[in-house]
Structures are given as structure tokens and as C-alpha cells.
């Protein structure tokens, strides 16, 4: 009789153990779907494996205005999905209390292949990139320590950090890793150009687009290299220097005069939905960009050797180029439900 009771008790304990385990599962791993033809990402996922909960936390953080000093500006405030996470219609990014910075909002996608960040390449890793806009006085103006304290006191975050990382502890490292997980899922390789390249049935370039692609390959592709449509380098493209802005570009980071007026080569993917253009957003129309390369450059000492004779573009070439660039818009990406803004309620 006693033996039986012991067995029953043992079985009951075992059952409790199993139920208990099932009740608190670890985070669920998530695999990014990437086309096979792409090179290996630069971002090291082994140190921050993607999980559904990690991505969800990153998305929540991305759209939470509490990350700014006066809770008015979130990351998504400037990085708008319909503009490929650039800032629609704003030449210069702006932040809390109406403050304005000196550069335009870069688009966000395919970041896991990018070695350095910002227009001057001053930030060396995806994970530490968000610290810049969060703490910059003219953007979110928030003290990092104060932010961590703010998140620690929030019930939703306690729950979400626990789901993503196993405990409620909020650290800057966890916050930055979660943000990186979400940003890692911003992948854009579903444009019509991609379908054409993959020989998907029924998808072809029109004659105009094909002409534009040829012009692109001849005149743009050495810097705006496929498949990313950038080679991630820093160059002086001959954009005239504006004394009122006094932006010396990469030289601010390296103190090297050879880097004067050099800025990151932006991707041309989603280019027609992410105007305005250039590091200071001075061109609202892509045809102004064509015109600059055709006849509007300022050729200083550091001008890129590939661009020192400009890029002559006839009217026809410009029109066809526009048609081609239009095929680089990834509608699936800018409408991707998993990246959409979410309401932050507390």
C-alpha cells in the first residue's frame, strides 16, 4: 500500500515536472529566409541568434516613443516603412522639441551585410548603431542610463525581456541585441528586378527598363554594385559643398584630409520611394540627381576617380534609368506586415 502511494507520488511529481517544463518554453528560434545567391552576412548571428520573442521585443522598442527624452519620438518616427524606412519628404532628420540635424535619414534594409553605419561610416557595428540616434541631443536626446531605468520600471518590457532573454533584467546590451534582431529582418530582395534576375515565369523588363538596366550597368554599377546596389564604400561623388552645412563627411571620423567630403554610397534599392536624396537630402527628385552627375558636380581634390569626368546622361538615358530604378521598389518589403508599426499602449 505504502509502496503504491510512493509510486503514485513519484508519477505525480514527474508529471508536474513535465507540465512545468512545457509551461515555460525558451524563446523560439527564427530562421531568416534569404536568397541562396547572396554572400554570407557580415552580422554574426552566433552571438545573437534570432528568436521570435527577440524580434518582437526589437519591433516593440523600434516603435516605442519612450526611447526618447520626452517620449515623443520613436525610431519608426523617422524610419518609415512606406519610405523603405527612410523619412518621406524630409531633407534633414528632426527629433525632440523641433530640433533638426545636419543629415538625412538613411533607409534601413539589408543591414546585416553592412560593415559600418551612418553617412560617414563612423559607427562600426549594427548593435551599437541605435545608441547614436537615441542619445543624440537633436534626435531622441535620451541618456542611455536613464533609458534603461525607464524600461526596467515598465511591466510590458519586464515580460518581453523575460520572453526573449530568459530573465526580466533589462540591460543596454539586451536592448541593442533585440533592436538588431528586428532590424536584421528588414530584408529587401523581392523587387521586380529580383524576379527578372531569378527568371520567374512571366516577369520581364520592358524595353525601356531593359535600356535603363544597360545604362545602369555601364554608368552606375561600379559603385552601386549588384545585388545590394552599393559597394558600401565612402566616396566623394562631386556633390557641391554647402558652406551653410559645413559637413566634411568621413574626414570628421578619420581626421584624414583624403576623406574630405566622402560619404557612404547608398543603395539604389527602393530609391524611388525614399526621396529626398544625398546625405543632406538636398534633391527631392531623382532627375536632380541625374542632372548633378551630368553637369552639376564640384570637382575638388578628393573627387572619386570614377566620377571625375561626371556621368553624361542623355534625356533618353535618364528616362530609361528612371524606369529601371522603378523596378527596384520592393512592394512586399514596404508592405511587410511583420515590420509594420505597432501601437505602444503603456
Amino acid at each position, binding site marked *: 500500500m505504502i509502496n503504491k502511494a510512493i509510486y503514485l507520488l513519484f508519477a505525480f511529481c514527474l508529471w508536474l515536472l513535465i507540465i512545468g517544463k512545457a509551461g515555460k518554453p525558451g524563446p523560439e528560434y527564427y530562421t531568416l529566409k534569404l536568397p541562396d545567391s547572396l554572400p554570407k552576412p557580415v552580422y*554574426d548571428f552566433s*552571438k*545573437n541568434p534570432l528568436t521570435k520573442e527577440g524580434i518582437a521585443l526589437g519591433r516593440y522598442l523600434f516603435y516605442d516613443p519612450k526611447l526618447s527624452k520626452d517620449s515623443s519620438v520613436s525610431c519608426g518616427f523617422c524610419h518609415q516603412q512606406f519610405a523603405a524606412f527612410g523619412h518621406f519628404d524630409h531633407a534633414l532628420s528632426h527629433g525632440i522639441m523641433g530640433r533638426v540635424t545636419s543629415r538625412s535619414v538613411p533607409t534601413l534594409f539589408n543591414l546585416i551585410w553592412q560593415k559600418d553605419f*551612418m553617412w560617414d561610416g*563612423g*559607427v*562600426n*557595428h*549594427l*548593435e*551599437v548603431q541605435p*545608441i*547614436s540616434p537615441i*542619445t*543624440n541631443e537633436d534626435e531622441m536626446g535620451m541618456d*542611455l*542610463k536613464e533609458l*534603461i531605468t525607464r524600461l526596467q520600471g515598465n511591466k510590458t518590457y519586464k515580460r518581453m525581456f523575460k520572453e526573449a532573454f530568459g530573465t526580466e533584467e533589462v*540591460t*543596454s*546590451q539586451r536592448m*541593442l*541585441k533585440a533592436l*538588431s534582431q528586428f532590424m536584421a529582418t528588414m530584408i529587401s530582395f523581392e523587387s521586380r528586378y529580383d524576379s527578372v534576375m531569378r527568371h520567374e515565369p512571366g516577369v520581364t523588363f520592358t524595353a525601356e527598363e531593359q535600356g535603363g538596366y544597360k545604362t545602369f550597368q555601364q554608368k552606375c554599377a561600379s559603385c552601386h554594385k549588384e545585388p545590394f546596389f552599393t559597394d558600401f564604400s565612402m566616396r566623394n561623388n562631386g556633390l557641391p559643398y554647402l558652406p551653410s552645412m559645413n559637413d566634411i563627411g568621413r574626414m*570628421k*571620423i578619420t*581626421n584624414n584630409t583624403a576623406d574630405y567630403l566622402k560619404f557612404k554610397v547608398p543603395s539604389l534599392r527602393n530609391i524611388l520611394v525614399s526621396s529626398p536624396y544625398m546625405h543632406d537630402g538636398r534633391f527631392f527628385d531623382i532627375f536632380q540627381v541625374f542632372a548633378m552627375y551630368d553637369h552639376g558636380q564640384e570637382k575638388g581634390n578628393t573627387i572619386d576617380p570614377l566620377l571625375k569626368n561626371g556621368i553624361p546622361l542623355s534625356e533618353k538615358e535618364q528616362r530609361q534609368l528612371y524606369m529601371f530604378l522603378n523596378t527596384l521598389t520592393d512592394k512586399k518589403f514596404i508592405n511587410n506586415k511583420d515590420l509594420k508599426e505597432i501601437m505602444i499602449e503603456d
Partner: protein
Amino acid sequence: MRYWLLLFCLFILQWADAQLLKVCLQHTVNGQPVVLGKTNYQNAAGDTFNITKFQYYLSNFSLTDSSGKIVKLSSECFLIKEGDEASKKLSFTNLPAGQYKSISFMVGVDSLLNCTGAQNGSLDPINGMFWTWNSGYIMMKLEGTSPSSHLPEHMIQFHIGGYRAPHMTQRWITLPLSVPVKSGQLILRLNADIAILLNGISFRQSAGFMTPGTAADKIADNYQHMFSVGWHNNN
């Protein structure tokens, strides 16, 4: 049986205790101890100044024994802050028995840790020792005021960093121990002299810089020589 167990525990404790190295940091200016905000000091250029903040990273501690073998103690980065006594006392518990003739360490943070993403602990960017606009750690920070400074509020502000060639500010330091010491409970007093850190600096000409570059490299060359072993004690 119980006594044996107790003896065994005592033995383990004894053994663990015997392997301890403590490094205590002390900050001075020309022999005068540093007191934040209060004391006035003078640099070689004759400028009077006070210090409101002095903090820096030390990492990669190792000892060299009498046969020349290097014993790595820890790859941990310690953030030393004047005014925070706990941060000025470092303990290493994994010191093997032996005779040691010198101690080596790095001022600053390994290049790799400067460029591999979000870090934790002493390297957490909330400690205010990380540059956000030009990624990388501030290896050493000295702030204060001096009537000679032309900056607002007469402040002096030196943030020394840079991990990429040609402007690298990490420095390796090896200091001999005056007599070879046996491991035991070894306590080591390291003195850092800010007068040496400020060698060649006149606040009238330059009261601060906060970017990687030649000026920061010079200060790094200075801090390579600012440390000395005050005394050590072998129990």
C-alpha cells in the same frame, strides 16, 4: 569521518586563499593624493587645476614568473574610477603557485571589443566610456577645471580613445616587482601619477580633446609611463 571532511574543507579554503592576488590602485599628482573636486594641483607648464573625474580601463593582466613564463590572470576589462573605492581594488583568484618578477597589463580595451557590438558589464555604454558618433571606447577620461583653460567654465576635458591604426591608444605596460614574490596572498599597490599623464600639456594651449588622433596618441604615450608599483606585500 566528519573531522576528515572538515579538515579537507579547511585545506581547500587554505589552498584557494593562497592563490589570491589583489591589485590596489592609487592616484596621485606629483605624490599628492587625488581628491575629486577639492585639491588644487599644478602641471609642469605651471597651470593650476583640479580634477572632477578620472577614470580608465585596465585589462589583460598577467604575471611573469622567474623562468620567464607568462601567467594570464584574466582577460576581463576593469573600469577604474577615482572616487569609487571598490573599482580601485582588483582581485584575481586563479594565481598558480610560483615566483613572480613582473606584472603586465593593458591600459584600454582590446581592439576586438571595440568593434564587435553591444557589450556588457564594465563595457556597458551606460558607463559613459563609449563614443557613439565614432564607435569605440574612451580608454581614459580626465576632467576638471583650470583658470588657464579658455574653454567654457574653464574646464579641462581629455577623453582619450581610438582603436584603429594609425591612432591606437591602447598601451601595454610591464612593471618589475622589486623583489621576486612568491604567490600567497599577494597585495600589490599600483600608483598612477597624473602629472606624468599631463606631460607636455599646457592648458592655456589645449584644455581638452575628445577625438582619436595625434593629440590623443601623445597622451596615450604618457599614460604608458604613469604607472608604478608602490609596494607589494606577500603573506
